[in-house]
């Protein structure tokens, strides 16, 4: 990928990881942050997309990226 796009992609990855850690109880367990259809990150991302009524793709699409940048309450969306 051209560097610019890759960098944006990494920033998006960090944003979504932080969001899922803060509000969906995601715990990075050391595994590399790569998209595998069944890994914990993807599951949490689907949970978040379902909560907000987004299309449940498990992928970091623009609607999801847009939402994680909005101001919000600091409390998690899932019990915990």
């Amino acid at each position, binding site marked *: 990928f051209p560097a610019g796009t890759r960098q944006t992609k990494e920033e998006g990855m960090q944003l979504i990881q932080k969001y899922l850690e803060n509000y969906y109880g995601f715990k990075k367990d050391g595994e590399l942050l790569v998209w595998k259809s069944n890994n914990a990150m993807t599951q949490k991302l689907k949970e978040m997309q379902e909560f*907000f*009524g987004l299309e449940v793709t498990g992928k970091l699409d623009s609607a999801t990226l847009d*939402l994680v940048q*909005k101001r919000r*309450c600091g409390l998690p969306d899932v019990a915990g």
Partner: protein
Amino acid sequence: FSTFAGEPKWTKQVLTYRLVNYTPDLRPADVNAAIEKALSVWSSVTPLRFIKKDRGDADILISFAARGHNDFIPFDGPGGSLAHAYAPGKDFGGDAHFDEDETWTKSTEGTNLFYVAAHEFGHSLGLSHSKDPNALMYPVYRKYDPSGLLLHQDDIAGIQYLYGPSPNTNNDQRESTEIKDPTDSKNPALPNSCSPNLTFDAVTSFRGEIMFFKDKHIWRKHPAVRTADFELISSFWPQLPPGVDAAYEIPEKDEMVIFKGNEFWVVRGDTILSGYPQKLYTLGFLKDVTKIDAAFHNRNEGKTYYFIADKFWSYDKRSQSMDRKPLLIRDAFPGINGKIDAVFQHENFLYFFSGRKQFEFDLDKKRVTRFLKTNFWFPC
């Protein structure tokens, strides 16, 4: 809507709250009003009532802080997480923290404190986040629309699932100002703020609110908030006797003076200053004056007026002298005849209460400008 795991909720209906500190983004009075209004959003649809404390512990401690702030969830600078609150319980339970790195406002710009506080107090009372994008308990901040209804049906269903509806049966979300005082079952009836026969013992301004004293209770009303809170006098000042005669505020000293019989007390917030009660004559009255009916302090004039039967005395702060003899009320306040029960000043008007009548008196025009019902200030 959703609740927290285990459905924690408060087991009592009267909750206390205290502002531990203030944001520099707004005047303290605006912060107080926003917080009070945010709590009244929830008390208007449930039996819950909220009492503001100025010191000591409280069920809901409210604070502003940036980044790490002695709990396990540090804030994240401007944007992102705006605030958080804890489910009902002891210690942290119920507390609400606001991120000082936000710009707190009372408008639609920046981050509206009232709107965020109303959301956070939903957590303090036991609600978690809602998936309904129109609900107050939806986690994402939306531009505050002052013209819109804040509570959505989803929020009301959630909070009433935990606490039941407001005791006001016609449930038009109007605040019922009755607190069923558990320690007072022998009291035949609580005063009703909407009774046409409503009379008051005393009325005064108090830190931006108006306090209406009646027997053992007070109504607290912020001019900017539609609802009134109804509390026991003893919940603020346990040593004060019920059925006071008069009260007035000295805003420049942040003091309130309360009279009963030939004694008076001076309070600051919920604290009675030491050395009180004192006897009336220490104010400069003749010893045969055994009680006063009403009083107010005119901050602009620096004068305090004391009303007894159809006459009044005035004390001039500058010359530090009390009138040598009383004057007729109707001479200085044309249209106000005979004994009054209570009086207070709001902006440039005086409001005199006599039985079931209230007279608005314009201090500039020196005349009565409106005849009002005594419950004019309540959402009846």
